[in-house]
């Protein structure tokens, strides 16, 4: 971080229930170091937004304590927390101009007029909207509104910025562009950012670390590459990226390795991640791009499969195969021009390394 001025956040055994019967957030412990870009990723109803709202102060925690820079903030009013926030639909005040919107957090802090104007202009320049101060939010495009919302959340120099699915309303191209812009702003300012999204690409692109939420629990908290390469359970493997599932039973364990027998009797070597002993049911997780058609005998796993369908996608070819009784087995082949000929109906051998195959908890 260029100039690290972010705040540290700590969730300490936080629980949240709305109805007193079920927990939306189950015992959350999370440490966010200063200046980190942390993304809470998960499907809707996984508790990620609730966690964000508890941090912002709009929802009280049912149990546990949240610390901001080691200061407990459960009993601090939202407006006294000094946390910038970008909302899903921007929440720009429609009756104020862009400049007035940006000046709002400064006015309520009794910042002098001259300093206000200077900071507003600075923030507008930062998001490249310097000439738009006199427009109303309704006169801006979605992307411009989004930038104003980001500028407004940053104009009062908060140490922590929360973003609640801020790019959800934008089209794909604009979304990608804004991802980079937000990432760069974060890098330049060094504030701590807690970002909530259900879009895994967004999470992987922007974050230092990603917390994958499901069912009120953090399933895995790690860097984007770890998340993709080393999913700790089936949910994470399914949720992040594309994934082949092969169901089987553990028949042999050897240190970090294990031998898994599939339903049709095929035996595969896999990384022992989420299984403990012989006899455990397991689901093997395998990325489609790690499967090779150019097999050789040094590969840990070699299987025969029938090609069911070929889909030409330009940069790569998607091959749907029937492997070990699973006809949803996908292989991605890079389009290298040498025109390796694959034909539907053909039975070919595919292979992959043991490390690319993870033995995780069984899913139906």
């Amino acid at each position, binding site marked *: 971080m260029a100039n690290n001025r972010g705040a540290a956040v700590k969730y300490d055994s936080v629980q949240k229930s709305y109805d007193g019967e079920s927990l939306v957030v189950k015992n959350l412990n999370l440490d966010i170091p200063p200046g980190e870009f942390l993304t809470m990723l998960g499907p809707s109803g996984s508790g990620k937004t609730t966690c964000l709202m508890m941090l912002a102060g709009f929802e009280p925690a049912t149990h546990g304590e949240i610390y901001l820079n080691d200061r407990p903030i459960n009993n601090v*009013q*939202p*407006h006294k927390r000094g*946390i910038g926030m970008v*909302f*899903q639909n921007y*929440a720009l*005040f429609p*009756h104020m101009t862009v400049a007035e919107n940006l000046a709002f957090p400064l006015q*309520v802090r009794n910042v002098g007029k001259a300093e206000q104007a200077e900071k507003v202009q600075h923030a507008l320049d930062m998001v490249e909207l310097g000439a738009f101060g006199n427009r109303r939010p309704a006169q801006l495009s979605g992307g411009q509104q989004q930038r104003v919302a980001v500028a407004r959340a940053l104009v009062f120099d908060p140490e922590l910025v929360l973003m609640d699915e801020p790019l959800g309303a934008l089209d794909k191209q604009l979304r990608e562009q804004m991802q980079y812009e937000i990432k760069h702003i974060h890098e330049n300012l060094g504030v701590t950012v807690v970002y909530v999204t259900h879009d895994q690409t967004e999470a992987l692109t922007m974050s230092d670390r990603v917390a994958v939420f499901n069912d009120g629990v953090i399933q895995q908290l790690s860097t984007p590459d770890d998340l993709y390469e080393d999913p700790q359970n089936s949910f994470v493997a399914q949720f992040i990226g594309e994934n082949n599932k092969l169901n089987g039973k553990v028949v042999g364990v050897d240190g970090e390795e294990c031998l898994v027998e599939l339903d049709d009797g095929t035996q595969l070597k896999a990384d022992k991640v989420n299984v403990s002993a012989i006899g455990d049911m397991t689901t093997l997780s395998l990325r489609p791009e790690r499967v090779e058609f150019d097999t050789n005998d040094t590969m840990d796993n070699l299987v025969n499969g029938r090609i069911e369908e070929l889909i030409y996608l330009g940069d790569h070819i998607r091959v749907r195969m029937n492997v070990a009784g699973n006809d949803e087995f996908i292989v991605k082949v890079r389009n290298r021009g040498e025109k390796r000929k694959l034909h539907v109906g053909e039975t070919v051998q595919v292979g992959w390394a043991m490390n690319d195959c993870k033995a995780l908890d069984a899913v139906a």
Partner: protein
Amino acid sequence: MSDTTQDGQVLTTQDGRPLKAALGRALFREKLRAFLLVAPLLIFILITFVAPIIDMLHRSVENSIVEETLPKTVVALQEWDSGSGDVPDEVVFAALYDDMVIAVDEKTHTRLGSRLNYEQSGISSLFRKTGRRIKRMDEGEPLKDQFLAADKKWGDVTTWQVLKQFSPSYTGGYFLNAFDAKLGPEGVELKPADERIYLFLFGRTLFLSTVITLSCLLLGYPIAFLLAALPLRTSNLLMILVLLPFWTSLLVRTSAWKVLLQQQGVINDFLVWINLISDSGRLVMINNQTGTIIAMTHILLPFMILPLYSVMKTISPTYVRAAKSLGANDWTAFWRVYFPQSVPGIGAGAVLVFILSIGYYITPELVGGTSGIFISNRIAYHISSSLNWGLAAALGTLLLVAVLVLFVVYDKIVGIDNVKLG
């Protein structure tokens, strides 16, 4: 499509007809259908709303009765100088005799008498008396003396001044009356202070309507705010409570206020019972302005709540959250962010309540006593009791103009596009 050109040439269809005409023909059926759909309502409104208003505007200035009843007299009076201070000469009386004979025959002289009586009291009886005597008059003798003998008011210059002043078929007299003014020798002047009533009543109507609008706003805003903030199921239940008064007869509700507010009524009894007031010091809350304000605020409250609610419902709660996250406390978040966005609802509600209350009749009539009645009660009086429809029409026209003026003023200050009903 045909080849179209951008350089000012008329665009045509393939077979060379102008594109606009072709389009017009194509859309004609649709337009006709649309028109036929609204036609019943349009005709209904024309008959029951526009026509009466035009008739009212006409009645407020129409005055052909003098010319129709006394045609010859009106012509003869043109020679007479009303500023001379002398009673007209024999020629005018001869014309009056001819007119009166016909008028008595047709029994129209009494109507003219009552019409002119609005301008000058006593003329009604003058015409009745003369009408009875007219058959005994002798055409051969000087008619002026015979008329003076019949009633000496014919020798009074003001009688003739009034007759001449109201001989044209259109008059501003009703409007002057509605402004508490009259046409004196030196032009328009206000009536003597003890005869003025309408300006005062207009003032009171505007004042009470403003008070009622404000109290509706004060009571309605928090309710609407609550309704908009609650979950749908609860807010629907509360909404039914808000609308409940609509399902009860206006008369019943107003009478209920009589039961509650009168001096031997429920509220006074309760206050006496808890010793807040003494038995001799019972509060006067009905048959005065207080009664009108309380009862009308109650009746018009839903008209304030509904537009407020529908506007507030569209204000996303994230705005307030955003304001708080930016450092605004509860009050600042409300006042700087929520309130400005609810202004269109306030505008709509206020205009609705104000315009409804400015023309309200039943409630002030029942609970207003004398100090709590509106201009509309006076209009009703002139329509049903005094039968001075011209004055009633003039007062009604003024009320209409007042509303329109307020509407324009409102548009200038708040902007009419800032009014939202939902």
